[in-house]
């Protein structure tokens, strides 16, 4: 019941604070988003750790100073991070970390009474968090802000305007704080390198897939493409809408002597000797979807006339209608090209 209520609250919050779908594109995907489950686990562990340390301090009789309350602030930061992760405000989590870590470093300096507080290291942790979870611009501004903040705190310390009176003794607690900082930074660097290597690996994979797609497209590995190209009968393909030649096969090039590039985007009129047979063919092509095998006389590139039979068929695709015209050339089937008009006998089947 409580869980359902919590889910309802987070959904409601998410509706109000989630950015629109296009707002962040094409920013790199957030490593926090990619590993939100781990991030959420870390968040509640941080909250539990902060709360646990606070309780241990109280049980151990550590005086309740403002500096010792930083563990409680850590617990609050962990809880807030968990909530923001729950409602998928990944960028806000990074800003929360920066603001909290800088704030804790400043507060610790103020209450401890010196910039020599061990917690000053939190400024660097905030900078590392910004470098990993925010944009490059965010990193630059956070670095500038961190240096400025360190300068202000140093100045405040030197000017004696800080609140506390520092006790510079060190012990296991200071060591634990420094060690936790080192381990925290190492964990963030682990995420950082994972993020970078993942992006580089994806780039590499995408480049290989793109290369394959281009080869597939340009080399026409499809069996139907090969059948078209290797067909022994000359074929040319036209756009049904414009009549422009879109493709020809190798048999067409061999038979009529035209290179593919010489005929592309041209209408087919220049291929024929315009006589009565051609007129019949044009009429039939216009009136029917599929013509029979009709005799026409083609004009080869060298000007020679070539008797052959042709048949055309078109489809009704409204966007990409095609007209396919195939030729039967008797001479080429026997190994030599005829040079005079000699209509091929055979059924004009349709």
């Amino acid at each position: 019941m409580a869980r359902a209520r919590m889910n309802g609250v987070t959904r409601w919050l998410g509706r109000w604070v989630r950015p629109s779908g296009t707002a962040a594109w094409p920013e790199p995907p957030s490593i926090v988003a990619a590993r939100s489950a781990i991030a959420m686990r870390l968040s509640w562990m941080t909250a539990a750790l902060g709360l646990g340390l606070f309780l241990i301090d109280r049980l151990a009789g550590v005086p309740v100073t403002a500096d010792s309350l930083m563990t409680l602030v850590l617990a609050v930061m962990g809880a807030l991070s968990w909530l923001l992760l729950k409602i998928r405000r990944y960028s806000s989590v990074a800003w929360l970390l920066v603001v909290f870590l800088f704030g804790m470093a400043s507060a610790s300096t103020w209450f401890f009474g010196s910039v020599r507080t061990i917690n000053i290291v939190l400024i660097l942790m905030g900078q590392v968090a910004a470098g990993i979870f925010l944009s490059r611009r965010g990193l630059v501004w956070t670095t500038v802000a961190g240096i400025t903040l360190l300068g202000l705190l140093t100045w405040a310390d030197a000017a004696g305007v800080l609140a506390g009176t520092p006790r510079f003794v060190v012990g296991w607690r200071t060591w634990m704080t420094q060690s936790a900082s080192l381990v925290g930074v190492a964990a963030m660097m682990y995420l950082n390198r994972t993020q970078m290597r993942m992006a580089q690996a994806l780039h590499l994979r995408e480049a290989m897939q793109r290369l394959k797609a281009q080869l597939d497209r340009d080399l026409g590995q499809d069996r139907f493409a090969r059948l078209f190209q290797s067909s022994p009968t000359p074929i040319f393909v036209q756009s049904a809408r414009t009549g422009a030649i879109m493709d020809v096969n190798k048999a067409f090039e061999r038979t009529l002597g035209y290179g593919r590039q010489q005929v592309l985007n041209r209408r087919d009129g220049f291929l024929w000797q315009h006589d009565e047979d051609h007129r019949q063919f044009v009429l039939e092509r216009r009136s029917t979807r599929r013509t029979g095998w009709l005799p026409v006389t083609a004009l080869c590139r060298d000007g020679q006339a070539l008797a052959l039979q042709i048949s055309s068929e078109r489809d009704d695709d409204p966007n990409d209608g095609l007209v396919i015209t195939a030729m039967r050339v008797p001479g080429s089937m026997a190994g030599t090209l005829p040079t005079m008009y000699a209509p091929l006998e055979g059924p004009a089947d349709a």
Partner: protein
Amino acid sequence: MLDSRPLEDPAEIRVAQSRRRSDSLRWVLGGIVLLMAGMALVDHFLAPPGESRSVISLSMGVVALLSFLMLRANPRKWGSPLLVVGILVTSAWAVYSYGSVRAAASQGMLGAVVMAGTYLSLRALWVTTVSGVLILGGLTWAEAGGHLVTPGLAADLRFWLMGSVIMAVIGALLHHTRKATDEAYLHQLNQSEDRLRLEHERDQSQRRFRRIFRLNPTALMIQYAGTGAILEVNPAFGRDLGYPDDRLVGQPAAHLWADVAQWEAHARLLFERGRTDWQHGQWLRSDGQPTEVLVCSELSEDASGMLILTTVLPGVAGALGSASNPASVP
């Protein structure tokens, strides 16, 4: 067809990524050399007499310079590990000579972890972290036990400058990884856009060639070379020989030949040469009547195996008496 972006060679991508990494490390090392030289000067002039630790800053600068030179001589070999070890040692030295782990130089341990995380292996990252923890533990123990000199813990310009230098170096390191990540992601996006477009064009091309196959007025047949089973025929095939399209699929193509010897001769020539010329033969129409045809076949490799692509001209063989007879093929 024009492509908006040039192809990227995967091997070159790896080289470029490695080169960018070396370039950025070189810049960082150069920056550390200059910053440490500056810190040494500042320390020399600002420190009270006898308290200057500029030699430590200079040592760090020398280590960075050495790493820089090693990187130029032998990229990615020893430059980065030397620098990480150098940062750890000089940070420990600075803390020891200062007398407290509250020295600004103790933050250098964080810098070493960031450096290791950026340029070294995962194992090196954890080794550096554990080393940093142990070094700090030892120094804390020494300080708590009174084995170090008494530090002057006043805040001064040197503290701020050292802290700022460490932050600047960490910022530069993080900037490199973020830039590399962002660039890789952007390249991936560009490649992805191109891939989608190319795949669309490829699919469109395949659909178009399939339509050309279907619309072709010449009878065409595709069959498996291994089994001889018919894989596909176009409508013209059905029209010319009287077969419904779906009746032939899966049937042995040899059954279309009235004379098996002709088919065997045709197939033998096909497998010997990879393709045949036009050959005439007798095929069976759907009603069982033999008909004269001209047949031309070609072997073709396909993802699904070796295929035979056959073109058939029925009823015209008599007019083309010069075509070869498969039965006569040796």
